[in-house]
C-alpha cells in the first residue's frame, strides 16, 4: 500500500497525564456539563461549535480549522472495560493492548516487526523523546530514540566538537562487529553500531531541512518539528512517536489546560502546514491519544483521574468528522457514579490504523478482532 508512490507513515502523539476530554470536545448545550463543572468549565459563549451538541475548546482553534477543512476525525468515548485510574497502569494498557493481564510487548513494537522483519532500517521507528515508550518496545526490534535532533545520539554531553567526533569515532571502532566474541557481546556490538548509524544518518536531517513554517517555542512544537525534519529527510521512517506532557490537572486546570490546548493544536497545525509545503503530507496520518479522561465533576480547581477519553486521527487522507459516540452525560449512566463511560474500544482505532492505513493484519498485533471505523478517504 503506497500513497503517491510513498509508504504510509504513522505519527503517534501521546498526551501524558490524562487529557480532560470533556473540556476538549465540549457538550456545550448539555446542562449536566455545567452542573458538574461549576469551576473548571468553558463558558458557553466561548466554545467553537461543531454542531448543536459539541464544540471544540476555544484554545484549540487551529485544530478546529483543520476539522472544518475535513482533516480531523474525532474518536469519541474511547476506552475499555474497568478503566484503570493509575497513570502507569493505564498507559501500559494503551501501550500493550493488555487490559487484563500485564503485558510487556508494545503494539507498535509488533507493528515495526511486521513492517521491517529483517531489521533493515534502524530508523523504521523513531521516538522523539528519551527512553523508549513501552508501545515501541518488543524484543529484537530496533527503535531509535531522539532526545534532541540538533544534538542527537551518543556522547551528547561532550560539547567540544573535535573531542566528540573523536569519541564517536572510537565508539564506532569499539562496537564494530566482533565475530566470535560471544552472542551477547556480538549483540551489544550490533546494537551499538545501530545506535551509531541511526544517529549518524539522523544528524543530516537538520541540514537538509528548510522551511517557512515557524513553529512555536514549546516542547510539542519542537518534537513535531523534529518529526517533520526526519520525515522530510526521507530516511524511511514509518512510525514516529512523541509525547506531550502535563495533562494531569488535579488543580489549576483553568490556567494550564488552555495553554496545552494552544500548544498542541498550534503544533499540529504547523506540522501539517510544513508537510504540505514540502509535498510530504499525503502519506502521513497522526493519531493523538491519552491514557484516560477525567472525572465528571470538577474539584473546585481541577479534575481527578477518570475514564472515557477521546482520540484524534488527523491527516490529508482522513475523512473528518465525529466517530463513535460521545459518552452519555446522564448521571444514571456514569461509571462508578462519577465518570464518563466508554463507548468504543481503543483497540478498534489501533486496528483501523493498522489495517486501513498501514495495510497490516491487526488481529495478532492488538490480540483480537475489534470494531473498526472508516475514517480514511478512498483514493
Amino acid at each position, binding site marked *: 500500500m503506497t500513497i503517491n508512490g510513498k509508504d504510509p507513515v504513522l505519527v503517534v502523539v501521546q498526551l501524558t497525564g490524562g487529557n480532560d476530554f470533556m473540556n476538549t470536545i465540549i457538550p456545550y448545550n448539555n446542562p449536566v456539563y455545567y452542573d458538574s463543572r461549576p469551576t473548571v468549565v468553558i463558558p458557553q459563549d466561548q466554545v467553537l461549535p461543531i454542531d448543536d451538541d459539541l464544540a471544540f475548546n476555544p484554545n484549540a482553534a487551529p485544530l478546529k480549522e483543520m476539522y472544518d477543512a475535513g482533516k480531523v476525525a474525532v474518536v469519541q468515548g474511547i476506552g475499555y472495560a474497568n478503566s484503570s485510574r493509575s497513570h502507569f497502569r493505564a498507559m501500559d494498557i494503551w501501550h500493550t493492548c493488555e487490559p487484563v493481564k500485564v503485558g510487556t510487548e508494545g503494539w507498535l513494537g509488533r507493528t515495526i516487526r511486521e513492517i521491517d522483519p529483517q531489521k533493515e532500517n534502524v530508523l523504521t521507528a523513531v521516538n522523539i523523546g528519551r527512553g*523508549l515508550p513501552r508501545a515501541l518496545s518488543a524484543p529484537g526490534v530496533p527503535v531509535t530514540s531522539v532526545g534532541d535532533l540538533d544534538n542527537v545520539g551518543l*556522547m551528547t554531553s561532550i560539547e567540544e566538537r573535535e*573531542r566528540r567526533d573523536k569519541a564517536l569515532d*572510537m565508539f564506532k571502532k569499539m562496537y564494530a562487529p566482533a565475530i566470535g566474541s560471544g552472542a*551477547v557481546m556480538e549483540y551489544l556490538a550490533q546494537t551499538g553500531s545501530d545506535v551509531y548509524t541511526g544517529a549518524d544518518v539522523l544528524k543530516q536531517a537538520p541540514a537538509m531541512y528548510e522551511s517557512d513554517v515557524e513553529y512555536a517555542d514549546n516542547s510539542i512544537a519542537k518534537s513535531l518539528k523534529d518529526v517533520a525534519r526526519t520525515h522530510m529527510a526521507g530516511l524511511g521512517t514509518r512510525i514516529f512517536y512523541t509525547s506531550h506532557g502535563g495533562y494531569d490537572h488535579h488543580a489549576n486546570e483553568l490556567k494550564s489546560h488552555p495553554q496545552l490546548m494552544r500548544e498542541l493544536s498550534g503544533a499540529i497545525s504547523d506540522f501539517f502546514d510544513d508537510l504540505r509545503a514540502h509535498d510530504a503530507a499525503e502519506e502521513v496520518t497522526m493519531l493523538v491519544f491519552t491514557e484516560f479522561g477525567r472525572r465528571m465533576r470538577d474539584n473546585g480547581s481541577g479534575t481527578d483521574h477518570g475514564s472515557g477519553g477521546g482520540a484524534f486521527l488527523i491527516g490529508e487522507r482522513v475523512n473528518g468528522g465525529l466517530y463513535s459516540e460521545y459518552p452519555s452525560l446522564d448521571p444514571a449512566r456514569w461509571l462508578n457514579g462519577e465518570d464518563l463511560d466508554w463507548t468504543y474500544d481503543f483497540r478498534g482505532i489501533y486496528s483501523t490504523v493498522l489495517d486501513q492505513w498501514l495495510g497490516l493484519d491487526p488481529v495478532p498485533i492488538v490480540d483480537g478482532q475489534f470494531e473498526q471505523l472508516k475514517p480514511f478517504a478512498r483514493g
Partner: protein
Amino acid sequence: MAKSDLALMAHLLRRAGFGATRDEIEEYAEKGYEDVVEDLVNPERCPPLDEDIISRYYDGENHVIWTSTWMYRMIVTRRPLVEKMALFWHHVFATGAGKVEHGPSMINQIQMFRKHGFGDFRTLLVELSRDPAMIFWLDNNENRLGEPNENYGRELLELFSMGAGNYSEDDIKNASRAFTGWTFTQPIPLYPQGHHPSEFVFKPQEHDYGPKTFLGESGNFDGEDIIDIIVRQEATARFIARHLYNFYVADEPQVPAWPIEPPQDQEAIDAIVQTYFDTGGDMRAIMRMILLSDFFKEARFKKVKSPTELVTGVLKLGGSITAPQPGIGRYQAATGLMGQQLLNPPTVEGWHTGREWIDGGTLNERINFAVEHIGDAEKPGVQEIIRRLGGNGDGGSARLSPEDFTERCLTLAGPLDVGEQTRQTLLDYARSGGTLDLSAPEERGKSVPRVVHMLQMIVSSKEYQFA
C-alpha cells in the same frame, strides 16, 4: 597488592554490592576475600546506615524520593549485600507501583526484604504472603471463602517458589483457599492529608477452614501450612537456586524458559540446592556458599549490568555521593530511561535481565549517562584516578607511556577485562597523544583532559556493560 586479588575483590563488590571506589577495593582486599564475604553475609558486623540524616534530608513521599533514597542507600551503605539482597527479592517477588499506588506499602515491602531477605526462606514467604503491597498486587484481598481469587496462589507457586510444571491446577486452587481471609486494613486515602499505613489483617469470617489437598498432602491447611509444604520441595530449592545464579553469578535465560532450557551450570545449581537443604533454606548460608564458590569467582563479566547496577557503579566510580545532596532524583530517572524503574517492575515476572536490558534506546542512555558523569574532572573519583596515575601510590608515575596510560586506566576504573578491539582503540588514542605527563602544572593542563577522555571511553565500552 596483587592485581588478581584486586580484580577478584572488584568482582565480589560488583555482585554482592554496587561497585566500589578504588580505595574501598584496596581496603577490602587488604582484609582478605573470605573475611570480606563474612562481613557481607553478617551485615551487623559493619556500621549501619545513618538513618537520621536520610530522614532529615530525604523526607517526603513520592515515587521519586523513595526510589532516589533507595539508590542513595545502595551507594553509601557499608552493608551492601543487604541492599543487593533486597533488590534481588524485588526482582523475584516483583511488585509494581503501577498497580500498588500506595507507596508506603511498597517501601515497607522493600524494608521487609532488608529484614528477612537474609533469613530462612520459609519466614520470607510467610512475610511475603502477609505483605499488603503483595496482597493487593496479586488480588489476595479479593480472595475469600466461597469466592476464591487464585492470582496469589498461582504466582506463589509459579513465580515465587517452585516454577511452572511442578504442581497441578488443583494444587493452585487448594493453595488459594488456604490464603483466603489474608488481607490488609484500609489505609486513610492520600487525599487530602497524606498517606497512612496499611497493615496485614486476618479475617476469620473470610477464611476457608475446610480440608484441602496440596501436593499430595491433606489437612485443614492455612497459608502457613502451604508454605511449610512448599519449602520442603526440591523444585523450590532448584527454582530459587537458579534465580540466585541468574542474579549473582551469570545470566540465564528468562524465567519462562526454565522448564525447557537446563541451567548452564547444573553442578552449581546442585551445590546451591544442597546448601538449601543442609541449612533449612538459610539465605545467609546460601549466599556465603555462593560467594566463596569457584563458579562465582570464575564468573567475572558474565552478566549484563542491570540499569541500577550500571548507574550505581558509575556513581561509585565518580565518588561524589557520600552524603545527601539535592537533585538525586536524576539518578532514578536515569535507570528508568535505561529500562528499570525501581519499585515498578513491568510485570509480576519482574524485569527481563541479561541481554534484554539492552536495546538501542537503553544502550544510548547507558553510555550518555556514564560519559556525562565521568566527564567531570573535579569528581573525587576522577581526581583519585589522576592522583594515582601521577605516581602517588601503586606503580603510577608522573610520565606514562601510552601503553601504561591505557593499562593503568583500565585497572583503576575496574579492573576491567577488555577485548582486543577495545584495547586497540584505547591504545591508539593513547598513542595519538604520546607520553602522558602529569609532572608539571602546564603539562597537567593537557594531560588531565586526556585521562578524562580515556575514562569516558572505558565506561562507553561494551565490556563496561558487564558486571
